């Protein structure tokens, strides 16, 4: 039995400790916003936050999440930053098929948390691990830059 804190709520899960967090979120808790894309940390569709840092849930054993705060796309709007990023995504109309977008948004939010004013190169580095087959990368960059501007405006 693993004790977890997901999106601010304590949950207990009966899963083998080696089970990747991804499948605990999906199969046990039906939090399906976190996606399976590759299972080997190549595509980033499963990106969630562990104590605020972006991790790949597909290669994170649930045992490693124990005692830490897990944030998924479903809980992202609880923070002002998460809301700002989602709003930027909406304004730029980023998604196409949408499958990778939870991971993109989680990665972008973690980036902006660490670095509120990322350069283009820093955005490219931070987002390089999250694949999109629909080609939304340029819109993602625009959305991240808009969110950064929004945050700057808010701080004034």
């Amino acid at each position: 039995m693993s004790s977890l804190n997901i999106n601010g709520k304590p949950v207990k899960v009966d899963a083998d400790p080696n089970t990747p967090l991804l499948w605990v979120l999906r199969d046990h808790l039906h939090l399906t916003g976190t996606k399976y894309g590759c299972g080997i940390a190549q595509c980033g569709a499963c990106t969630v936050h562990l104590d605020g840092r972006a991790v790949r849930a597909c290669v994170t054993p649930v045992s490693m999440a124990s005692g830490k705060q897990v944030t998924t796309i479903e809980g992202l709007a609880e923070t002002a930053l998460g809301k700002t990023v989602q709003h930027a995504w909406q304004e730029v109309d980023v998604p196409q098929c949408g499958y990778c977008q939870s991971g993109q948004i989680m990665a972008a939010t973690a980036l902006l948390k660490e670095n509120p004013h990322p350069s283009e190169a820093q955005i490219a580095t931070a987002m390089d691990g999250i694949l999109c087959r629909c080609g939304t990368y340029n819109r993602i960059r625009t959305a991240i830059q808009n969110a950064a501007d929004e945050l700057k405006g808010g701080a004034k």
Partner: protein
Amino acid sequence: MKPTTAEIPGRRKFLKDSAALMGGLVIGFYLPFKGGRAMAAEGAAKPAPVYPPNAFIRIAADDTITIVVNKSEMGQGVYTSLPMLIAEELEADWSRIRVESAPVDAVYNHTGFGMQITGGSSSIPSSWEQLRRVGASARILLVRAAAAQWGVPESECRAENSRITHAASGRMLSYGDVADAAARLTLPQDVALKSPGDFKLIGKPVKRLDTPEKITGRAQFGLDVYIPDMLTVLVARSPVFGGKVKRFDATEARKVPGVQGIYQVPTGIAVAASGFWPAKTARELLEIEWEEGAGAGVSTARMREDYRALARTPGLTARKDGDAGAALKSAQKTVSAEYEVPYLAHAAMEPLNVVVDLRADRCTIWTGTQSQTMDRAMAAKTAGLKPEQVEIHTTFLGGGFGRRANPVSDFVIEAVQVAKAVGKPIKVVWTREDDTRGGHYRPMWADYIEAAIGRDGRPVAWKHTIVGQSITAGTPFEAFMTKDGIDVTSVEGAATIPYSIPNLEVGLHSPKNQVPVQWWRSVGHSHTAFVVETMMDELAHLAGQDPVQYRLALLDKSPRYAGVLRLAAEKSGWGKQVLPAGHAYGVAVHQSFDSYVAEVAEVSVESGKIRVHRVVCAVDCGMVVNPDGIRQQLESAVVYGLSAALHGEITLENGRVVQSNFHDYVPLRFSEMPRIEVHIVPSEAPPTGIGEPGTPPIAPAVANAVFRLTGKRLRSMPFDRAALA
């Protein structure tokens, strides 16, 4: 995917039949509590006299308008663009539009193909008339109902923003107020549509209706479906195409906690478990001996040699103008070249998956499919049921690119077979490795071209031989897409070359093997545009002429090709723009799915690595429905084509697919992304395809730029195999 348009024999017949089948348009309204979806399904195929509660529009008492969309949303934006067509004529309040995916029913058939299917970049073209008429008919009935209630002439009433007003008396009714009364009226016969000048919505940038769900994790893809008592199933499939299980030992696999059962199914061994992880863990412990069959002999290295040899021999004639052989013999300047492109996996971000709840008298399926009618028929056949006993819920598709319109319903049939074996509701999940190695690839192709130019530099001869598998052979599509041995999708873009060349021959060889092949975004064009447009660049070079001017002179009979080429050249500053040192432009133009796209790529080669900095696209896709949707599709199509051009390759050794996941089947990543500009040619022609036409020109545009930089011709894909350092 294909099929599309006039090339397909019998399309006109389909159009006629489907119109007859629909019995005119069926429009209806009913309040949700009066029966919902089931009513639409019941009434659908009946002729018009009985009022068939329709299919496409539901107006609720609170004025919410639900548009039932009969095309699958896989990123291309049909959940926005198709409702726009209805809303325009309906005079609907766009902010109150909701979207629901259609069940399977004849009323939702594609107007051109006579079945429910999403592909061939045809959603807008095939729905353009149909859905505007649906919207207009509904508006007429709503106005009629309001006028009747007020006892005033319809002509004095005006519909706008989901409201009907009678100016003289100052009265107003909302659509929700009269929806019920409107539903009892007889359908109007002659429905006048707006002239484009009166459009309020069509042609304006409209935000996607599915974005809110897709940025919050709420959007439901097939993989997100969980139903009570459902088991997750992974299937161990043959490592070789066409292989069968000889014997297996599941002793160790059964010991994994969570495993509920292990079953032999026609495609392999199915492991049913409480979730993905135990199923995957157990699958790795299976010991299976395979009867591999002839597929074990397939090697792409060997095929390459065979294909190259075959390309030097005459094939079936797909086009013959003049006498290319004779013209080549007498020509002064000739050039010949071999081309190769590999098998490609679609690699949608969401791996294949299907949920099946199979009962004695019915079967319910949830999956992201592009091909509902055929999938339902094959599921029914597999389950021993009638098609009407099978229900398909089409979820969002985490990418389709053609893979999810499988012409033999591979993933759906297998899932029903698994459901039969397991006897409980199941979800078959394909791992990324399964998806990459599961076949149904874009075919591998080899081409040989001999061409010659005359004294003025214009081409006088062009002899093109194509070698590759037919994607329709052995499928239900073969009957109307293959004629006299020529699969139209094998030669599209090559036999339809637009340039004025007096002696032109295109030949085709269609060898067979065990590797299943299928349409892949832009189908035959994904390969022919590369071959034709890089060879045109060679001819321009041989003639000592500018590649844009050279093409324009040969496009004298093809104004829409010339139009996009001029626009892309102008917007990119072709021939004028001073590029950074080490950068060069390359250009290509191609028509597919009745749309014309020219692309200018700005490229550099750094330490042997190709870098694409910027792509300027010009598109002529007829009248524009949602300009922002068109931009999205061009951006997407360029990236999809660029992934393949630079990195994409599926190879086989001893019948086994070498690549398995995103580390060795590599899509374009963020840091490789070029800036993409999209310029749309204003047009009053009916709208044509947009999901695919942006893909074909990118590979040749990049290859042509690389030639300008390095003097090397890239004639095989992927380009990152080429030594450019």
